[in-house]
C-alpha cells in the first residue's frame, strides 16, 4: 500500500508519454530494451499506457483486484521506466522500482490491508476472525528487496575499488566530486541542495573518513541479509550516505528512499503500537449475531481495527457475558439497534455508536470530524434507522433470544 502510494506520488506529474514524441536520433536502446527490440510507441499510445499504469498503481495502492493490478503495474511500469533509459543515459535509481514491482507482482500483497481483504471479510464474515497468519508468503518480497538493495550497494562499492582502488578513500576523489557538483551546469545531474560540499572538500580530515565510511557501508550491506545488528547499523548508514549525496552532490535518491520501507520491521512496529494501545481503554461493540449486515459490518470493522481497541460482542449468543459486564443494558434493545459502550462508559446507539468508534480506527480519522458537522448527525440517524428497520427484509432472520439471566 505504502510503496505503490509513494510510486503514485513520485510519478504524479511526470509525463512519461512525451518520450513517444522525441526525435529518434536520441534513441539508443540499452539492455533488455535492445534485446527484446522494445519499440517506442507513438505519444498517444504512450499516454494511454501511462494512464492505465496510474490506474493500476491506484488499484495496487488501495488493494483492489490486487493480483491483477500489481501484475499489470509491473508490466506497464517496466515498459514506461525502461523507455527513457534508452534516451541518452541510464538513471541508476530507476531499475530498483522495476524489481520491487516484479516482487509485488508475484506476491499475495492483497491479503493484508487492502480493499480486497475488506471485501472478502464482508463476503465471508466467519473467516474475518482469522486474519492471514505470518507465512513466508508474505515475507519473501521484503527479503527479495533486501537482496536487491544489498547487491546494488555491493556492486557500487566493488566498482569504486576496481576503478580507483583504495585511492578512492585516501586521495581527493570525493573532494573533486564535491567541487564539480557545485559547478551548476557543469554537472548535468543537477545542483546539490547546499554548498556544504565545498566546505567539506577543503577538509581532508573530514572527506576522507566520509569516503571510507561510504565504501564500508556499501560493501557491508549484504551482511544485513543475515544479521540483525548489521540491519541496525548498515542500513541507516547507506540511507545517510544517500541523503549526504543529495545534500552535497545533487542527485536525489527519492526512488531508493521508497525501498528503505522494506527494511522497517513493520511487524514489530505494529506489535508495539498495539501494546501501547492496550493501555488505552476499549470500546465494546454489541451487535445482533443473527443479522447478516451486522456480521459483515463487524468483519470489516475488525479488519480495520488495527490497534484492537474495539471488543465485539454478539448480543444474541453471548448475552450472559454482556449482561454480567453491563447489567444496565437490555438484550431487546441491543438486538434492535447496534450499541457501543465507550471507553468512558457512555452508551451510544446507531449512528452515534459509529461516530464514537470512528476515533479508534485510523482509516476513519479523516471523516470522523465530518460526522459532527451540523446536519450530518440528523441525516446519519435517519439513514441508520431506515437500514435497521429494513435489515430483516434484507435477509437477516428474526433473532431467537437466548435466555437472559
Amino acid at each position, binding site marked *: 500500500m505504502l510503496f505503490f502510494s509513494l510510486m503514485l506520488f513520485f510519478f504524479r506529474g511526470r509525463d512519461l508519454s512525451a518520450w513517444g514524441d522525441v526525435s529518434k536520433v536520441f534513441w539508443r536502446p540499452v539492455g533488455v530494451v535492445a534485446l527484446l527490440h522494445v519499440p517506442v510507441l507513438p505519444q498517444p499510445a504512450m499516454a494511454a499506457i501511462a494512464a492505465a499504469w496510474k490506474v493500476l498503481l491506484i488499484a495496487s495502492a488501495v488493494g483492489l483486484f490486487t493480483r491483477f493490478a500489481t501484475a499489470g503495474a509491473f508490466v506497464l511500469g517496466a515498459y514506461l521506466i525502461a523507455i527513457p533509459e534508452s534516451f541518452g543515459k541510464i538513471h541508476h535509481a530507476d531499475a530498483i522500482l522495476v524489481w520491487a514491482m516484479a516482487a509485488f507482482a508475484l506476491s499475495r500483497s492483497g491479503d493484508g490491508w487492502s480493499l480486497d481483504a475488506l471485501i472478502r471479510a464482508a463476503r465471508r464474515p466467519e473467516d474475518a476472525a482469522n486474519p492471514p497468519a505470518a507465512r513466508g*508468503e508474505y515475507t519473501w518480497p521484503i527479503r527479495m528487496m533486501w*537482496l536487491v538493495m544489498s547487491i546494488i550497494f555491493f556492486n557500487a562499492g*566493488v566498482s569504486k575499488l576496481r576503478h580507483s582502488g583504495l585511492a578512492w578513500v585516501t586521495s581527493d576523489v570525493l573532494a573533486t566530486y564535491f567541487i564539480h557538483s557545485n559547478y*551548476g551546469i557543469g554537472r548535468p545531474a543537477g545542483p546539490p541542495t547546499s554548498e556544504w560540499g565545498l566546505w567539506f572538500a577543503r577538509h581532508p580530515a573530514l572527506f576522507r573518513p566520509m569516503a571510507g565510511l561510504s565504501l564500508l557501508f556499501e560493501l557491508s550491506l549484504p551482511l544485513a541479509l543475515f544479521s540483525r545488528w548489521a540491519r541496525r547499523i548498515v542500513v541507516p548508514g547507506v540511507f545517510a550516505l544517500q541523503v549526504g549525496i543529495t545534500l552535497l552532490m545533487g542527485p536525489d535518491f527519492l526512488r531508493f528512499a521508497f525501498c528503505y520501507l522494506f527494511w522497517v520491521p513493520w511487524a514489530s512496529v505494529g506489535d508495539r503500537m498495539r501494546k501501547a494501545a492496550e493501555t488505552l481503554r476499549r470500546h465494546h461493540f454489541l451487535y445482533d449475531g443473527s443479522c447478516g449486515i451486522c456480521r459483515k459490518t463487524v468483519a470489516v470493522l475488525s479488519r480495520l481495527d488495527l490497534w484492537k481497541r474495539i471488543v465485539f460482542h454478539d448480543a444474541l449468543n453471548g448475552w450472559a457475558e454482556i449482561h454480567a459486564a453491563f447489567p444496565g443494558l437490555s438484550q431487546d434493545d441491543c438486538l434492535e439497534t447496534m450499541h457501543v459502550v465507550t471507553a468512558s462508559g457512555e452508551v451510544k446507539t446507531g449512528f452515534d455508536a459509529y461516530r464514537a468508534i470512528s476515533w479508534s480506527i485510523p482509516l476513519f480519522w479523516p471523516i470522523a470530524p465530518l460526522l459532527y458537522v451540523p446536519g450530518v448527525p440528523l441525516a446519519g440517524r435517519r439513514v441508520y434507522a431506515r437500514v435497521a428497520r429494513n435489515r430483516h427484509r434484507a435477509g437477516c432472520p428474526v433473532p431467537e433470544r437466548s435466555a437472559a439471566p
Partner: protein
Amino acid sequence: MRGRRLAPVLILAGVAVLWVGVEIAAPAAIRNLHAGRGPVALQRRLEGRERHSAEHYVTVWLGRARPAAAVLTVAALLAAALTIPAARRSFHEAVHRATGGDSVPQPEPPPRPRRIAVAGLAVLFAGGSLVELAIDPPYRGEHWPFSQYRMYSETPRRSPLVGLRPFGVTAEDPPREILLDGRYIRPFDGSRLAASWNRFVQEPDRERLLQAGLADCLRRYELRRAGGAFEGPPLQAVRLYRLTWDVDDRASTRDAPRRELICEVRASNAPTPSR
C-alpha cells in the same frame, strides 16, 4: 538420489567446460577470425582488425571473460556444495541462527510454484548483477535493468571540467542566450541530454546527429512555450556549446566557463526532426 549425486558432477563439469572455452577455445576462435577464417559476420565483430593484432583481441577477451568466469565459478561451486545434504543442512542452520533462530517464529513457506517463481526472480537479479559486475561494461552502457553501479567510481581530473550544453537564442533585440534545461525541453533532463551530446560528437555523422538533436530541442521548446508550460520569448536559434571551466576549490569560476560553439540550428532552416 542418483540425481543428487550427479548434480555436483555436472556442475563441476560445466565449470571445466567454461574455463576451457574461456582460455582455449575462444582465443583460438579469435585468432582464426582475425586471420580471415570463419563466419564473415563474426569477423566483422573484430572492428579495426587491420590495425590491431590478434593478441590485442585475445587480451580484451580475457580481460572481460576471466572475471565473469570467476564469478560464475564461485556461484557454481556454492551451488555444487549445496547439493550435498550435510552442507545444505549446515547452511540452513547458519541462516536460521543468523536470522534469529528459535526466538523468532519461522513462517510457513509459500507453495512450491511460487517458491520457484520467487527463486527465479532472485537468481535472475543476483546472477545478472554479478555478471554485470564481472564484465564491467562501459558507464551508461550497462545491460539495463542490471548494472554494476559504476557512478562516482572513477578518479576524476579536478580541472578543467568540460560539458556540452544547448542554449536557445531568443528572437529579441538584442538576443539573449538561455540554457535549455529540463524546464524547457521536457521530457529531457540535463543529464540524459548531456549524455546524448557526448555520444553525437564521437559519431562519424556527428553533424547530422547534432543538427537533428538541436532541431528537436528547438521544436520541443516552442511546443511547450505555445502550450503554456512556461513563459518565455520565441527562439531564433539553438546552439550547442562546449563549456570549459577552470575549476578551483571554492567554485568561484562556476559562472565563467570558456565557450566554444559546436553546432547551431536556426529556426528558419531547422531540419525536420525524425520521429
